[in-house]
């Protein structure tokens, strides 16, 4: 069922991609007016924000096959860079978006150095460790980060004289960043850089033998993913006006990770779908109070059971494992052939 819908959507999109894109962008621009509820637009803001975060993680995990489970660390760095520089020194938000991105990608580069020799789970634990280290430093370096008190009163960005504060205005910042992210990332992954990433994911040794400098491309990959996480962090800080280290725990990293996987790893739209689903579900189940996390956990497991390749992942994707094949029912055994 899903498969057919999926295939049809894809075929349709391929035929009319420009038209569809324009319509989608128009709808997204008009959405806050159509909805006219700060609360729902707030959720949309979160969806967009996590989309880019999940998308940037997907670049690392889905495309180059490295295994980062501490993405919250990059997010944290971006957010603190903006928050500290904007509140203390009054730097311009738009400039800070770029600065935070670049700074985070430099940290990404640093992190990629020890991890170049590591694969799979060894790499995972290192990224997890880095994420914790960054968080704990943010918690303890009181003179700069405010320590456990966090950074308060982060100024809202100004655009053409308008103060951008509150979900309905901030929505456009998130939207612009998300569109930019998709646009640029699409171009990168369809180029030789993207191919090099994928080849490293598939077989690093073979890639090397074909002249792909795997260390270089793995570092670039980390930096690219970190860049966007940093940009999103920077965009996020003034939105909530207050940041503290406990916003960037491992759970946050796992959360982003599960969005990538629920949506579909290694696909461009997957993380967007994942973010949408997870944010909506967690919102809808708010009434369940203490059972909410239970519901969320069950959702994650069910997703893995029903669609391990993610909602957007293809049916015949290798991520689907053998389950797809198993689905082809065996004919009943004929008896009496002997």
């Amino acid at each position, binding site marked *: 069922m899903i498969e057919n819908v999926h295939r049809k959507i894809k075929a349709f999109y391929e035929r009319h991609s420009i038209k569809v894109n324009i319509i989608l962008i128009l709808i997204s621009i008009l959405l806050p007016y159509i909805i006219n509820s700060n609360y729902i637009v707030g959720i949309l803001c979160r969806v967009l924000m996590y989309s880019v975060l999940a998308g940037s993680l997907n670049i690392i995990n889905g495309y180059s096959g490295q295994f980062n489970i501490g993405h919250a660390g990059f997010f944290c760095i971006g957010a603190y860079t903006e928050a500290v520089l904007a509140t203390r020194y009054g730097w311009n938000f738009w400039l800070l978006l770029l600065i935070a991105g670049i700074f985070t990608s430099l940290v990404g580069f640093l992190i990629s150095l020890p991890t170049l020799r590591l694969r799979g789970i060894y790499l995972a634990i290192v990224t997890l460790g880095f994420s914790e280290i960054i968080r704990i430093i943010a918690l303890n370096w009181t003179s700069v980060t405010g320590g456990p008190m966090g950074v308060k009163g982060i100024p809202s960005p100004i655009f053409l004289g308008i103060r951008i504060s509150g979900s309905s205005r901030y929505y456009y910042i998130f939207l612009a960043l998300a569109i930019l992210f998709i646009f640029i990332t699409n171009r990168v992954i369809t180029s030789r850089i993207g191919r090099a990433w994928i080849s490293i994911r598939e077989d690093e040794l073979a890639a090397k033998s074909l002249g792909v400098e795997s260390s270089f491309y793995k570092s670039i990959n980390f930096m690219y993913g970190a860049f966007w996480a940093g940009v999103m962090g920077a965009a996020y800080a003034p939105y909530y006006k207050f940041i503290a280290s406990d916003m960037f725990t491992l759970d946050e990293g796992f959360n982003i990770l599960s969005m990538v996987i629920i949506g579909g790893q290694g696909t461009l739209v997957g993380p967007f779908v994942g973010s949408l689903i997870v944010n909506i579900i967690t919102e809808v189940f708010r009434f369940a109070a203490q059972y909410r996390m239970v519901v969320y956990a069950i959702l994650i497991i069910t997703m893995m059971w029903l669609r391990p390749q993610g909602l957007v992942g293809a049916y015949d994707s290798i991520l689907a494992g053998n389950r797809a094949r198993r689905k082809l029912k*065996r004919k009943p055994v004929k008896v009496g052939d002997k």
Partner: protein
Amino acid sequence: MLKVIDLSVQYGYINALNSISFNVNKGEIITLIGGNGAGKTTTLMAISNVVQKYSGNVYFKEMNITDFQSHEIVHLGISHVPEGRKIFPALTVKENLIAGTFGNKRIRKNELNNKLEEVYTLFPRLRERINQGGGTLSGGEQQMLAIARGLMMDPDLIMLDEPSLGLAPIIIEEIFELILRIKKSGKTVLLIEQNAAMALQIADRGYVLERGKVLIEGTGTELIKDERVRKAYLGI
């Protein structure tokens, strides 16, 4: 001894095997030949139930083993030396060989050392490499290990998937002699070989597979003489 009836296998939407049937009698050497992608490997995997069958039945010693699990099939006395060697890279040579005995309680309990001796004499190379990790062996050494491991459980039927792959001519000779010896000891062999000439020579009967179907069948000598076979598979 082994009877395959109307076996079909699909990979996703690809038909790899299309209703093939054949049988293997006790004490015979049967060979499957065919071009790349004909479905030979798939046939063996389906018999061992490593890939899911789409339809069809497999009988072994008068027993319907179609839905048996892989390890149960092994315990009945079928040893499968898979394509691509599939040795355990982090086990040593000796441990790999011991792993080969899990399918046969008798050997595992009482005859382990005899059996080890036996395969070491067969492949002296392995004795030299006894404590080396399986993953660091050379290609041919791995192939020897895979065959030796398949022999460890003293099977009634041994299924060999391209055993000569990557072996030096001198060893290939030994392998074929070995296959004949296995037959002499009353065992049954199901052999896949690219080296069709040699395979057909020692085989009692053979089946030619093409695109997942049995194209021709006959005794070894018949097939060697068959014009189609000579042209397509013997390169003559």
